[in-house]
């Protein structure tokens, strides 16, 4: 049991995301989760064993370590990744609910239902509009909030993003002030800066996706308002149909760019 299970869940949401959403998911899995599992865990693996204090006083090392590292970087990043991935579940639940409704319609033999069989319903990709738009947008908003909160918490707890080589500790039972040395400080600093940079890229991607969704929403609204003002006439109907088809084509082209297969 590992992060692979998270990949399975989020991969399902991938189908209904925008193209920026798919890029975000790729960045999340390759640059954050994979780096966390493959590299960072090894670097922080011996953090307490190799945390050495210049004293023989039993207990001083434990207490100083606990004082300087209230929560290990690795665990904080793992928590951040879990919290940041959770809003995508909202979208997954909403899609599952819509699918359930369509299946119910189909079973009742509703004439309005345009699907031929259950397989089509299962494979259908829902467009991000209506209530799904609101769910999707709020999930991005929560993602942004969680990322920002965790980055701030990290900065606040560790006084910046640098890992010092030497820490001076005078917590009881250490007699006077004691020098304590952190293991692999440079490597840890490098990884910390890397994870922070990727976190910032993810924040930027989320902001861009939010702007894209808002722009699309307002454009659609103005188009609808424009269409309803005009006189209903045959040529306009054909134009709007052509517009919708063009939109569908451009959307499906965008969404075959990158991303996991789901």
């Amino acid at each position, binding site marked *: *049991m*590992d*992060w692979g*299970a*998270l990949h399975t869940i989020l991969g399902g949401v991938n189908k209904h995301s925008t193209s920026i959403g798919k890029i975000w998911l790729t960045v999340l899995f390759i640059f954050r989760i994979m780096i966390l599992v493959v590299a960072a*865990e090894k670097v922080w693996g011996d953090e*307490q*064993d190799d945390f050495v204090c210049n004293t023989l*006083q*039993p*207990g001083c*090392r*434990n*207490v100083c*370590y*606990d004082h300087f*590292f*209230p*929560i*290990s970087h*690795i*665990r904080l990043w*793992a*928590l951040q990744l*879990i919290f940041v*991935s*959770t809003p995508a*579940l909202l979208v997954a*639940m909403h899609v*599952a*609910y819509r699918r359930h409704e369509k299946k119910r319609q189909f079973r009742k033999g509703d004439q309005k239902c345009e699907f031929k069989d259950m397989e089509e319903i299962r494979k259908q990709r829902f467009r991000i509009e209506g209530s799904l738009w609101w769910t999707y947008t709020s999930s991005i908003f929560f993602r942004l909030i969680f990322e920002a909160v965790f980055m701030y918490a990290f900065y606040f707890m560790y006084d910046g993003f640098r890992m010092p080589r030497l820490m001076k500790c005078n917590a009881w*039972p250490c007699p006077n002030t004691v020098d304590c040395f952190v293991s692999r400080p440079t490597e840890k600093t490098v990884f910390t800066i890397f994870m922070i940079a990727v976190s910032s890229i993810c924040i930027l991607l989320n902001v861009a996706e939010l702007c894209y969704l808002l722009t699309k929403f307002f454009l659609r609204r103005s188009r609808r308002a424009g269409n309803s003002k005009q006189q209903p006439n045959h040529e306009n109907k054909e134009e709007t149909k052509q517009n919708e088809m063009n939109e569908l084509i451009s959307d499906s082209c965008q969404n075959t760019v990158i991303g996991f297969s789901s």
Partner: protein
Amino acid sequence: MSWAFLRDLLSGVNKYSTGIGRIWVAVVFMFRLLVYVAAAENIWKHEHDEFECNIKQPGCENVCFDHFFPVSHIRFWALQLIMVSIPSLLVVFHVAYRENREKHHKQKLYKNPGKIDDGLLCTYLISLILKTGLEIVFLVLFYKLYNGFKIPRLVKCDIKPCPNSVDCYISKSTEKMIFLYFLVATSCLCILLNLSELSYLIFKYSTKCYLKRHMKKQQ
């Protein structure tokens, strides 16, 4: 045998759950199982090696560790996670029994074997009550065993063979406490979800029953 079994079990349960039940599965999976495996397990990995007492007397550290941690926190939570997920198996078994019966009699006995009605409703309610009960039992047990939800930095130990009272230091106490609070909070959230699902189901089916009777009387 690993946690993958529990993950598959939870995905199986998801199919026959109500909406709130699915949220419960998501909370257990994301906030308890994943946090346990990805983060919490590693904190307690070397707890015995890192437990240090201010004494050279052989055996004193072992005895003191055993006194203060009869069951390690992490093993306690693993047990809690497993116990709390098991009642959901009752529902899965009942649906499998229904499908088996249909196969045996070679005719459609139920409109939908997976729909929560009559017998399956009882099983579902029992599983909810068991889940909630087990969560509360484990929380109370934890509280009683460790004298509250705290992990101190220093504990004083005076059990033989330690001469007099000896200072013993627990490693990573702050980090352990953060995760302790997190896991207790998610436990309480799960209890709330179970209780609301219980009340929702009781309300829904009692109104259904009442309306049916009312319609019959009118006829």
